[in-house]
């Protein structure tokens, strides 16, 4: 049943851009873009709409890995690698451990869904405003995505943006210590330990 639904959705998404590619309307890069964009949008919709909480988190993982494909289309391989490692590796594990430790129950936990239509309206309005704003601009001529030289990326990151880089490492250190400090079980006070010993 689920496989049939996936086949029904995936067939037009693959066939229509393929037709356009064969008819020389779009380039091969744009065909790949449409496929990856479809995976991203479907994954994001799954992450915000699926009631089963584990399914929603796995849909997020699919979305984040497909975004790495977008970065490859934009010719920044380093960022695609970073995306797969950090989001596909770290964030996934973090979210799934969080689900495990909070004994994930399916969402909606409560039957009150009164704000879902409001949220849908505001979300659609936001998407509409942003899309119109983007399409209204006369962007520069289509030079296409330029390849980012990797050596210059390193020079730029460590020389021009050296201070934000150090601050970012400080942010990670604070997050590490803070997460351990917040989430660990608090130890009993020494007086309580002494009382337990004398009883």
């Amino acid at each position, binding site marked *: 049943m689920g496989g049939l639904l996936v086949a029904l959705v995936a067939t037009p998404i693959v066939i229509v851009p393929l037709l356009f590619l064969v008819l020389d309307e779009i*380039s091969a890069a744009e065909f790949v873009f449409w496929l990856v*964009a479809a995976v991203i*949008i479907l994954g*994001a919709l799954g*992450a*915000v709409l699926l009631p089963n*909480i584990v399914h*929603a988190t796995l849909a*997020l993982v699919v979305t*984040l890995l497909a*975004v790495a494909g*977008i*970065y490859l289309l*934009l*010719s*920044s391989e380093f960022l695609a690698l*970073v*995306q797969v490692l950090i*989001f596909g590796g*770290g*964030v996934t594990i*973090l*979210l799934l451990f*969080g*689900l495990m*430790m*909070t004994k*994930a129950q399916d*969402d909606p*936990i*409560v039957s*009150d*869904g009164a*704000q879902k239509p409001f*949220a*849908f309206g505001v*979300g*659609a309005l*936001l*998407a509409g405003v942003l899309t119109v704003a*983007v*399409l209204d601009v006369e*962007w520069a001529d*289509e*030079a*296409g995505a*330029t390849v*980012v030289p990797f050596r210059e*990326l390193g020079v*730029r*990151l460590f020389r021009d943006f050296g201070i*934000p880089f150090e601050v*970012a490492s400080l*942010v990670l250190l*604070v997050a*590490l210590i*803070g*997460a351990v400090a*917040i*989430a660990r079980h608090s130890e009993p006070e020494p007086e309580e330990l002494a009382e337990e010993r004398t009883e």
Partner: protein
Amino acid sequence: MPIENFLVLAAILFAIGFYGVLARRSAILILVSVEIMLTAVSINMVAFASYLDPDRFTGIIFAIFIITVAAAELALALAIVLRLYRTRSSVNVDEVNLMRW
């Protein structure tokens, strides 16, 4: 490939994440939706860097920092959610409506 493809994709993704933040009741799924929004901004930045700024590509540096801060923020937010769960035995954000109990 025109740049509008990437920008409209980022806009739609941002709106989907925005809907998720408003509509989800579990704290962890709200964090998932925030991650979607941050990824959308990241796509936007990298598209700008690749198309409009090919010799200084500041957007890619920006995207690296977005990914870093997103990971740190997710770790801290999950620590808070764990603490909340330990006290209340529930991660439903509708029930977290007292400043102190």
